[in-house]
């Protein structure tokens, strides 16, 4: 992905020198300007590469010593210097997945309402309020989670899911309901990524051409059929882009998750059980990690998180690309 994003810049710069130099070549300001923005453009990918390199080098001793078991073992014991990050990797992926499963329908629903149904005067204030969710610091989400979300989860919600709905018969809702859990982390993440998905989706839906809707209505489609059959497919790739943005946020979120997930190095199928995430692990242990092996293990966790983020993003972008291609050929 980074390769394709660099090459257009380079191409443009080349084109620029070919056509522009003849006319403006004498203007020193132009050349300085071009040099400066090229420098900026090169800086960002370079910075990412440098960060990745530094983390990889620092984490290398761990990868070499533990090999694949670093990714598959659940044994994280700083006292005995044994490091296995499987519970944190599992927790990161599962909590983000829960967040997206909950947030996506909500966010898309909000955007459809705002772009298709809401009266004009309502759009701005409601949209603004949804966006405002993104402005709340994550530690505030964490505190809200501890004092509001956890008590509600512990008393009515979790026993209701487990016993009243009978979900306790599945492996996903078993065990005691203490509050801090994968479910709590997933829920708080859902609230936190919702504004990202909603904001992007709303803009994309508003950009769907009027003709698209009118054509569907003219063919006798109901309002529902118009939205489902003509508007949403048109906006599909943009909405998925919003989901990717939310996913990126969910994978890396640290503070709120640390406060609600229970920080337990254990893989449990039950969403009521506590878990761990990679970002929380680094945040919790980095400040006091004094041995080289421990530091290296935390760096290795950081590198793994980076790689997983890249892989997940690549898959998501591939999805956008496929869907985008489909959408381009499909409409009407």
């Amino acid at each position, binding site marked *: 992905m980074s390769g394709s994003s660099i090459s257009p810049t380079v191409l443009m710069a080349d084109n620029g020198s070919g056509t522009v130099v003849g006319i403006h070549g004498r203007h*020193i*300001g132009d050349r*300085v300007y071009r040099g400066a923005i090229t420098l900026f453009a090169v800086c960002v990918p370079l910075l990412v590469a440098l960060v990745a390199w530094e983390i990889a080098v620092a984490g290398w001793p761990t990868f070499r010593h533990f090999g694949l078991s670093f990714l598959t073992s659940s*044994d*994280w*014991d*700083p*006292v*005995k210097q044994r490091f296995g990050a499987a519970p944190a990797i599992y927790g990161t992926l599962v909590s983000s997945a829960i967040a997206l499963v909950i947030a996506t329908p909500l966010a898309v629903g909000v955007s459809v309402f705002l772009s298709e149904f809401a009266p004009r005067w309502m759009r701005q204030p409601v949209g603004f309020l949804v966006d405002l969710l993104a402005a709340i610091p994550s530690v505030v989400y964490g505190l809200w989670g*501890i*004092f509001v979300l*956890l*008590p509600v989860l*512990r008393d009515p919600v979790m026993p209701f899911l487990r016993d009243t709905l009978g979900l306790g018969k599945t492996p996903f809702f078993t065990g*005691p309901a*203490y*509050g*801090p859990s994968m479910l709590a982390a997933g829920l708080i993440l859902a609230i936190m990524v919702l504004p990202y998905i909603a904001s992007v989706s709303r803009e994309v839906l508003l950009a769907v051409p009027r003709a698209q809707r009118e054509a569907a209505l003219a063919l006798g489609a109901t309002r529902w059929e118009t939205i489902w059959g003509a508007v949403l497919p048109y906006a599909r790739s943009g909405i998925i882009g919003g989901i990717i943005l939310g996913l990126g946020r969910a994978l890396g979120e640290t503070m709120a998750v*640390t*406060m609600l997930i*229970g*920080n*337990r*190095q254990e893989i449990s199928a039950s969403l009521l059980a*506590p878990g761990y995430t990679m970002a*929380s692990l680094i*945040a*919790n*242990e980095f*400040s*006091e*990690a*004094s*041995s080289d092996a421990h530091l290296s293990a935390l760096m290795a966790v950081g590198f793994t998180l980076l790689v997983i983020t890249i892989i997940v993003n690549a898959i998501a972008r591939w999805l956008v690309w496929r869907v985008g291609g489909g959408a381009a050929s499909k409409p009407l």
Partner: protein
Amino acid sequence: MTFRKTGPIALVATVLVACGGGGSASHTSSDSTKSPASAVGVDLTGAGATFPYPIYSKWFADYARETSIKINYQSIGSGGGIRQLSERTVDFGASDAPMSDDELSKAKGAVMHFPTVIGAVAVTYNLPSLQTPIRLTGNVLADLFLGHITKWNDSRIKAENPGVALPATDVLVVHRAEASGTTYIFSDYLSTVSPDWAKAPGKGKELSWPVGIGAKGNEGVAGQVKQTPGAIAYVELAYAKQNNLPTAQLKNASGAYVAPSIESATAAAAGIADKLPNNTDYRISIVNAPGPRAYPIASFTWLLVYRNQTDATKAKKLKDFLHWYLHSGEGTAATLDYAPLPDVMKTRLDARVDSVSVGGAA
């Protein structure tokens, strides 16, 4: 062109200067006395433990008022304090756990440990039906945190609390999620009293916990305990006191049940201090201390200083401060809920301060 180029450079310079203002800590030590500007700003810099930060910042403020010598302390955590001292980027370090032999060997010179105050760790719990503080032995406490005892009406808890109606509630262990000196002291105690604990999680600032939920900070732990009947956890004594948390009485080495308090924490240090050999390096644990009034989960927190100082001016300032905290500073410790050192230790530590020397070559 020159104008446009100097723009961003000037900006960067401004930012650097601004950062330097806040973090001048790391510069002063390496610049030594040649740069008067930084020497006037801060005389000594230190970094390390967060647990004693409130009392340290009070000491440094009081000391600055009395002597106009400024000490900059960054509470970045014990591990960071040891690393910065080892790199000689600070004049002194601070740690809640004594430096290991391995860490000592990595430092650029011999490091001395100076105990400053005593911290105690209280065991708190949520059992609303209990009228009196629960009584526990070290072994029972270890088995609770190991997950061997899972119900509050377990016969071994009953044996320590005759006549108390204990509920049949499940035990929920809550522990610190992040690395912490509190966890180190607590696990040091459990390792001392329980062979099982010493084998399995052992002692450290972060552990592989057999059971329970990890919460962030004293406040996170206390919050979780308050919300969950049947929960048990450990928090700093100061935090437990300031928030009126119920605390367990623990059976100490002399067989007495002792509640956590400033007096019982100082008593723990006194119990050990009497028996210290003359050549001690003060890297000593005072958990499970002897003495009828000693609270068993207590620990020193230390200032870390190089025995051979490279800069004579700083060495003098540092030694002056060390003497000051032993005499004036200790008196104010209890106001912030830290236990002061027992008197027997102060005179011995005074002599130890005098042994800090200026070695000349770096």
